[in-house]
């Protein structure tokens, strides 16, 4: 059982993906049943594993690929953190996507790649070795491309092309780093950190840089973020998944794995590479916020906000102090919940009211109260207002920065808070205070669109309000850090 479970989890997304491709366009109920069924099964399996891993169990599956090359799937606490997020949000996004697309064209293709994308993310989370990590990382790159290009109009196609132009060299850098490292140390397993003393510090720094470039493209670290705002051309469910779970999170998760499981926090500090990365993450946080401030389109503003917020995770990992790491890990979850809420709402505004620009939000609050309340919760959470999710991550990151002897982090966090307030509060003001345009339309008679947004918005409130309970994301992140990277 313990060997089958990781594979089973992977299959819950991989099988629906494989089957969906061959379904006819109009077999809606079969396709929807398959996708939702997979998602529910996965949630059940994960719920069971959360329980047993908290009790100290671990699961491992070894699949030989070629002589000397094995794929290792392993469930540890960190992997579970990421797959519980992706499974929960996948389930909600599937419901949302089914309602969003209705009976539009090319749905089998869409849902096939959608499930494949989630399967890749799951595999990435479960990877126990560098080589399995790389395989799923590539699978993710390739399965995301058709999703971004889904509309097949000019902006979508060029956005998808831009995505590949950034992603493929990134993958090359990652592969280069893996080969360089493994040629010296042998295959790297995350449970068993490699002996780095065989390499020169200079070479190690270069390898670290290559690793960060490789995963940094996906994590949208400035200046490698150019593809992310362009990818806004994709349909709303894709943006939601891209920004909250799949691609940018895979990059951030990669940074965490590389720092803590490949190099080890102590080595990162000894090599002096943590501080440059933290500075880069801080620059990204500020730059993303500054750019978000200038956007007139809702989704573009949210995209630049993602650029900024995902680097909180990178910052937490780079500071290499336990508290900062808790802050970074918990932001992996918190940012996902808040951002997916915002994107769900942006999609509802677009679908139900035809509103894409910020000026169009005027007076929508009373007309679409549920959506707007969810949007407000998400935005206030991003600003970092207690008791919402964003506050908890920010508080831990700040404490971690002080702990790691980097008090300038406080300045970055405060600047980011103020900038977030500057680009989110005017939206809320428009929603609730300004009068609507005379020809404004819009309603929210679409429970399958609004429902997922309400759930994630409540989760944004819940994970902050109950942060100290052991079953909260914060409790889980603390468990990871104390158990695996121990004080």
């Amino acid at each position, binding site marked *: 059982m313990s060997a089958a479970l990781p594979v089973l989890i992977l299959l819950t997304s991989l099988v629906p993906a494989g089957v969906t491709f061959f379904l006819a366009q109009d077999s809606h109920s079969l396709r929807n049943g398959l996708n939702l069924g997979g998602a529910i099964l996965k949630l059940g399996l994960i719920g069971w594993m959360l329980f047993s891993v908290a009790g100290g169990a671990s699961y491992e599956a070894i699949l030989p690929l070629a002589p000397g090359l094995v794929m290792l799937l392993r469930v540890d606490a960190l992997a579970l953190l990421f797959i519980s997020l992706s499974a929960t949000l996948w389930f909600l996004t599937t419901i949302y996507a089914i309602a969003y697309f209705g009976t539009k064209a090319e749905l089998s293709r869409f849902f096939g790649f959608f499930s494949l994308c989630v399967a890749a993310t799951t595999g990435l989370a479960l990877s126990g070795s560098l080589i399995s990590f790389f395989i799923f990382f590539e699978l993710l790159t390739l399965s995301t491309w058709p999703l971004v290009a889904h509309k097949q109009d000019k902006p979508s196609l060029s956005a998808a*092309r*831009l995505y590949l*132009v*950034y992603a493929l*060299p*990134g993958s090359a*850098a990652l592969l280069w780093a893996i080969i360089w490292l493994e040629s010296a140390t042998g295959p790297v397993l995350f449970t068993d950190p490699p002996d780095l003393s065989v390499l020169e*510090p*200079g070479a190690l*720094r*270069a390898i*670290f*840089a*290559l690793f*960060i*470039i490789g995963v940094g*493209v996906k994590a949208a670290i400035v*200046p*490698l*973020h*150019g*593809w992310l705002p*362009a990818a806004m051309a994709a349909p709303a469910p894709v943006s939601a998944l891209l920004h909250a779970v799949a691609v940018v999170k895979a990059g951030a998760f990669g940074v965490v794995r590389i720092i803590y499981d490949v190099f080890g926090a102590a080595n990162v500090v000894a*090599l*002096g*590479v943590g501080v*440059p990365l933290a500075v*880069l993450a801080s620059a990204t946080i500020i*730059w993303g916020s*500054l*750019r978000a*401030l*200038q956007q007139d389109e809702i989704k573009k503003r949210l995209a630049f906000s993602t650029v900024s917020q995902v680097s909180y995770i990178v910052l937490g990992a780079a500071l290499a102090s336990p508290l900062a790491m808790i802050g970074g890990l918990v932001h992996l979850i918190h940012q996902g919940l808040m951002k997916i809420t915002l994107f769900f709402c942006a999609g509802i505004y677009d679908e139900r009211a035809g509103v894409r620009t910020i000026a169009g939000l005027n007076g929508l609050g*009373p007309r679409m109260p549920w959506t707007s309340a969810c949007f407000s919760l998400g935005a206030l959470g991003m600003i970092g*207002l*207690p*008791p919402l999710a964003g506050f*908890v991550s*920010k*508080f831990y990151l*700040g*404490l971690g920065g*002080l*702990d790691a002897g980097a*008090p300038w982090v*406080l300045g970055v*966090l*405060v600047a980011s*808070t*103020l900038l977030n*307030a500057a680009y989110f*509060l005017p939206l809320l003001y428009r929603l609730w*205070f300004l009068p609507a345009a005379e020809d404004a339309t819009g309603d929210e008679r679409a429970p399958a669109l609004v429902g997922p947004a309400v759930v994630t918005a409540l989760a944004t409130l819940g994970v*902050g*309000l*109950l*942060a*100290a*309970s052991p079953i909260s994301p*914060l409790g889980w992140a603390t468990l990871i850090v104390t158990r695996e990277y121990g004080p």
Partner: protein
Amino acid sequence: MNALLPFAVLIWPLLLGLVPAVPRWRPHALWILPLAPLPALGLALAGAPGAIFLPDLLLGVHLAAVPGGALYLGMTALVWAAAGVHAALTLPPGPKAGALTGFWCLTLAGNLGVFLAGDVVTFYLAFAAVSLAAWFLVVHERTKKALAAGKLYITLAILGEAALLIGLMIGAAAAEDLRVSSVRAALPDAPLGPFGIAALLVGFGIKAGMIPLHLWLPVAHPAAPVPGSAVLSGAIVKAGLIGMILFIPVASGWGSLLVVAGLIGAFAAALWGLTQQDPKAVLAYSTVSQMGLLLTLVGAGSSHVAFYALHHGLAKAAMFLCVGVVAAAATPRARLLTLTIAGIMALSVSGFPLSGGALAKLASKEGLSDPLVLALTLSSMTTTLVLGWFMLRLARHHATRGHRPVWPGLFAGAAFLAALALLVPWFLWERVTGLQGTYPLGQANILAGLWPVMLGLVAVAVLRARAMPSYPPGDLLALLEMLRARLILVQKAAPQSRRNFTIGHRRRILRILLRSRRADSFFQPWPHAGFLLTVVTLAFAISIWLPN
């Protein structure tokens, strides 16, 4: 059961705040406002017992009353209840009233929370609630004036929150614990301690109206509806005060800083109040002045700050309500009655012998150094002056139409608070100060209270005959605005070549933003992507090679 009391006090208004979310209940939602603070009043009357630790909530919530908590909680609950009645009687029902009801309750919960929080995260949450949700009280009228005041208010409130967060994080990191007492103990010796304390001083100073961070007070108070100004001036500013008491280590030099800033505020704000025409703006300056005195007491380590704050909260709220009561008075007799109440409150705040305010002043002078006692006595004179000016302005305040039938109810609310302000200090005197009940009746004490007030009244009589200069509320802000207007004039007069020397800061920010846009568009065409990747690889490699 007792242990749950503080929790219930906070949850009750939050639950009531949800009432207007139900459309059917919305038309009468305003009537829940007087009910929201009742559990807090009960807790205060019981002496604020109970302490509770809720380990799962937030980052672990400790609730217990702060030192002097019963006094703060009682005052806050009474002010909010009386203002709630006033709001329910005067504000028109509708969607605006629904929003006000919800955020009124949230602000109230935050205001009570700062007196009950035992850990820094709960404190920060309560402070954020009282600070940010109060914005809805300021902008309630939605007029241009109210929205402009709201903008200033929210800007300063958010800056204050940010400063507070820095200070609390520095303290919590040094203490490695979140309880207020540990953070307070760890702050002075923390690595960035002085910086953290300065940040806290700014955060609390904005709320408490410490000069020169008081700018929002005289702008926001007149813009808010009468009950809103009453709670802002009576109760909400005390959140900043309790923050100072809880976190600023006054034994070090920080105490002297508070004393100096407080004294400057006490005298300067009272005098500047004379340039105001709107009675609510005059009262706002009087609040800045009284908060200055309170900050002085905090800085000097007086043990009767809560006693003074109790009287000031009740009396100031009563005076603000009187502004609304005068406006609703239909007959000359009603008008006269209201003015009498306001006049008695003005004398009480000035420290007229045997009034509640006199008792508060007497108690707070205990244990102070002689120069400070003298300063306190002299401040009675300026207080009489500014409140006398307030009475003159109030007497000219015109009645507005509407609401007249509800005058008796409005009057009862103001009179109730006024009676409490006069009597509660007598009632609590022996218990709080430990002094004899006859102490305020001593001849020396009566004289010390009497002469500054009399001198002040003479000055008011003189002033009445003279034309006072008139400035818009917001002193420094108004001066800055005038300076800017001058500069623009100068700029227009200057020859073309030198015109650029006062480019507005707005334009400079715009230029920076434009540049970042141009820079960012560089990332979009994709031949640049490969180039970028190479450059970043090289730059990153070099940057991490360099240290060795």
